[in-house]
C-alpha cells in the first residue's frame, strides 16, 4: 500500500542525496575513519540504485546480485583501509589525514 506509492525516482533521489552526503563527508572530515564512513555511504548509494533498478526495471536479479557483491567488496576494502590506518596510528599516534602530507610537491 505504502510501498506502492514509492516510485523509482524516490529511490534515485534518496541515493543521490546519500551519495552527495558521502562525498561531502569524504571531503570535509579530517578523521580517517569518518572518511571511510563517507566512502561507505557513497558505495551504498550506488547499491540502492542497483537494487531499485533491478526491482523496477530489470526482469532478472542482476542488480541485486551486484549489490551483494559490492557490499562484500566494500567490507574487504574497509578492512584493508582500517589495517593501514591502525598501522599508521601505531607509528604516529594519530589518524588525522592532515598529518599525512609528507609526500607532496
Amino acid at each position, binding site marked *: 500500500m505504502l510501498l506502492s506509492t514509492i516510485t523509482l525516482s524516490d529511490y*534515485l533521489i534518496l*541515493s543521490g542525496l546519500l*551519495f552527495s552526503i*558521502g*562525498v561531502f563527508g*569524504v571531503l570535509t572530515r579530517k578523521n*580517517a575513519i569518518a*572518511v*571511510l564512513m563517507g*566512502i561507505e555511504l*557513497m*558505495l551504498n*548509494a*550506488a*547499491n540502492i*540504485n*542497483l537494487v*531499485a*533498478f533491478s526491482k523496477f*526495471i*530489470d*526482469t532478472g536479479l*542482476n*542488480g541485486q*546480485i*551486484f549489490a551483494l*557483491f*559490492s557490499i562484500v*567488496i566494500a567490507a*574487504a*576494502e574497509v578492512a*584493508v*583501509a582500517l589495517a*593501514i*590506518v591502525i*598501522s*599508521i596510528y601505531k*607509528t*604516529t599516534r594519530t589518524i588525522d*589525514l592532515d598529518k*599525512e602530507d*609528507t*609526500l*607532496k*610537491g
Partner: protein
Amino acid sequence: MMHRDLIRSLVLITPEIVAALTASVALIGAMLMKRSRGNEAFYIGIIGMIGALAATVILYERLTLDTAFYGMIAVDPFSLFFRIIAYTSILYVLLMSFNSRELKDTDGKWEFVAILSGFGIGMSMMASSLNLLMIYLSIELLSVMSYLLVSYTKGVRRSKEAGLKYIIYGSIASGFMLYGMSILYGISHSLNLREIALTFINSNYPPVTVYVATLFILAGFGFKIAMVPMHMWAPDVYEGAPTPITALLAVASKAAGFAVLLRFFYTAYISSVSMTQYYAQVSPIKWLTVIAIISAFTMTIGNIVAIPQNNIKRLLAYSSIAHAGYMLIGVSIISKAAIGSILLYLAVYFFMNLGAFVVVMVVDNNLNSEDINSYSGLSQVAPGLSAAMAVFLFSLTGIPPFAGFIGKVVIFLSAIDKGLYWLVIIAVLNTVVSLYYYARVIKKMYLETAPADIQPIKVGMLPALIIISLLIPTILFGIWWAPLQSFAHFSSFMY
C-alpha cells in the same frame, strides 16, 4: 551440455587458475613456515607466473575469439595480450624483489607472493570482463591488492601514508564508478556490455544522463591509468611504495586500466555501430572529444610538473602520467588501428619504464637515495648502468632509434589518420618539454663529475640480467618493430 560449457570455460582461464593455485600454495606456505626470511616464496611465485605465462601463450597460440562463463568474460587476443603483460610484469617484480633493499628484510614474503598472484588474476580479469559486475569485481581485486602491496613494507612511514592515500582515493574513485555503473544499468537494463551497446543503437536513452554515467565510470578507470584530473594520487603513491611495486603500478596497473577502458568503450559504445561514424551514437555528446581534451591536459600537466621534481621516482611518476596522456590520444580515436597502436605503446612502455625503475632500484640499493642529485657522475662509477638508464630515458622521450619513438609514431599515425592535428602537435611539443627533465637526469649522470665520497656501485648478476633483458627490446624494437607491430595489431581483436 552445461558442464561441458563449464569445462570449456575453465580451460579458457587456465592462466588464472595457475595464478590462483600459486596464491593458495603461497598462503599455505605462509601458514607452514612463518617468519622465514628465505626467498623460496619468490621461487614458488616465479614458477607460478611462468606457468601462467605458458598457459596464456598456449591459449594465444590457439587464437581463440571466445567467451567464457556465459559471456561474462571474453577470451580473445586482446585479453591474452594483457594477461601476458600482467604475468610478465609480476615475474619481473618478483625478480626485482630478490635485490630490493626495501623488501629484503620484510617477513611474510609468502603473503607478498600470494598478493601478487591475486593482483595478476585481477588484472587479467580486467582485460577480459564483458560485464559491469565482472569489471567492478576485477578492478576491486586489483585495487585491494595494490593497496596492500603499496603499504606492504613494515614500519616505513611513507609507504603507509602512500597506502592510505591510495586506498582513500581509490575507494572514492570506485564509488563514482559504481554509481555510474548503477545509472548505466538503470538505463540499459543490463550489465552486459553488448546489451548496453544495443540500447545505444536503438538510441532510446537520455543523453545527458548517459554522459554523467560515462564520466563517472571514466573517473573510475581514469584513476587506474592516472589520467587528469584523477592523477594526483600517483606521484605520492609512486614515491611511497617500494620501487618494485612502483614499477608494477606504473606498468601493469596502468595497462590494466587501459585494458578495461578500451574494452568497455569499444564494446559498449563503438563496435556495434559502423566504424565510419564513430561517436555518432552518443551524440550530441562528443565524449571522444572530451577524452581528446583530457589526453591533452594529461600529457601537458604530467610533463610540466615533472620538470621541477628532484625525486627520481616522483619524476617517473609524472612521466608515467604524461605517457598515459599519449596513450589517451589513441583512446580518443578508438579505431582498431588506434587500439593496436595503444597496445604497441603499452608493450614498448613496459620495457623502457620497467627498465628505468630497475635502474632506480639498483642505484637506490647502493646509494640509498632516490634524489636525482645523487646521480651526479654516475657514469664514472657505473658506466653500464648509466648507459642503460640513458637509453631508457631517451626512449621515454621518444628519440630514435629507441622503441619509445616507435610507440609515439604509431599513436601519432592513427591520430593524424583521423585528422587530429592539434592533438598531435600538442603531443610533439610535449616531447620537447619532456626531453628537458629526462635529459636533466642524463646530464647529472654524464655531464657532472662524481662527488669524491661516492661509493662504487655494485650491480648484481640478476639485476644486470634483468636490465639487459629489458634493454635489448628497447633498442631492437626501435630499429625493427615489425613483429611487435603485427603482434599488437593481432591483439587488438576483441570479442
